[in-house]
């Protein structure tokens, strides 16, 4: 049975999303299954009308331009493209907490296609209970 990593993504700023995608890359490379559970600002980040727009960093937003220029030099893809690639490469599932989209007045159809479904809190806790690696972002 494959090892599994669970990430609860409460935050949604691009700097944190990029770090999350990097962790997912390491797990998928090792043939681990990955489940991301989006809550509150995590859901906001995955909105179609938000994800690919300029959004502030959670820390040191004044350095955003420098970081993004260096990321481009390093051929790093945007976080949502990294996740798209990883879904093709391995078992990566992305779930939205059922309440969070409602907080933003949106539904599953308003989120990026890489978001698979909407789940409840019990499923999130159950998944975390049985996973091998956990992150809260």
């Amino acid at each position: 049975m494959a090892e599994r990593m669970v990430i609860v993504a409460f935050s949604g700023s691009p700097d944190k999303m990029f770090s999350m995608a990097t962790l997912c890359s390491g797990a998928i490379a090792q043939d681990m299954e990955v489940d991301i559970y989006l809550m509150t600002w995590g859901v906001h980040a995955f909105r179609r009308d938000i994800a690919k727009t300029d959004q502030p960093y959670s820390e040191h937003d004044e350095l955003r331009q420098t970081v993004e220029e260096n990321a481009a030099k390093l051929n790093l893809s945007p976080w949502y493209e990294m996740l798209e690639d990883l879904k093709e490469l391995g078992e990566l599932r992305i779930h939205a907490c059922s309440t969070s989209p409602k907080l933003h007045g949106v539904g599953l159809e308003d989120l990026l296609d890489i978001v698979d479904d909407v789940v409840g809190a019990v499923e999130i806790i159950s998944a975390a209970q049985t996973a091998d690696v956990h992150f809260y972002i």
Partner: protein
Amino acid sequence: MTPEELQALSVDKTVDARGTSCPGPLLAAKRGMPQVPMNGIMEVLSSDEGTKRDIPLWCKKIGHEYLGDREADGDFIIYVRRMK
């Protein structure tokens, strides 16, 4: 294996991930491995220093044999034998 022994290996697949940063080289290695024959050797070219540490851990986890690494012109070349 010594750098000289590594350089003398007959390589079945070269993955050139130079110019990409972590996790690019590791994912490139994962993508490339299915194209390596069983017991064949893949070399991964990387300019990212983290790859030198990630590939041995990846091999241990997946079950491939990490043969070693060497430096060439400021880049790293990591050698892996496909075992499964």
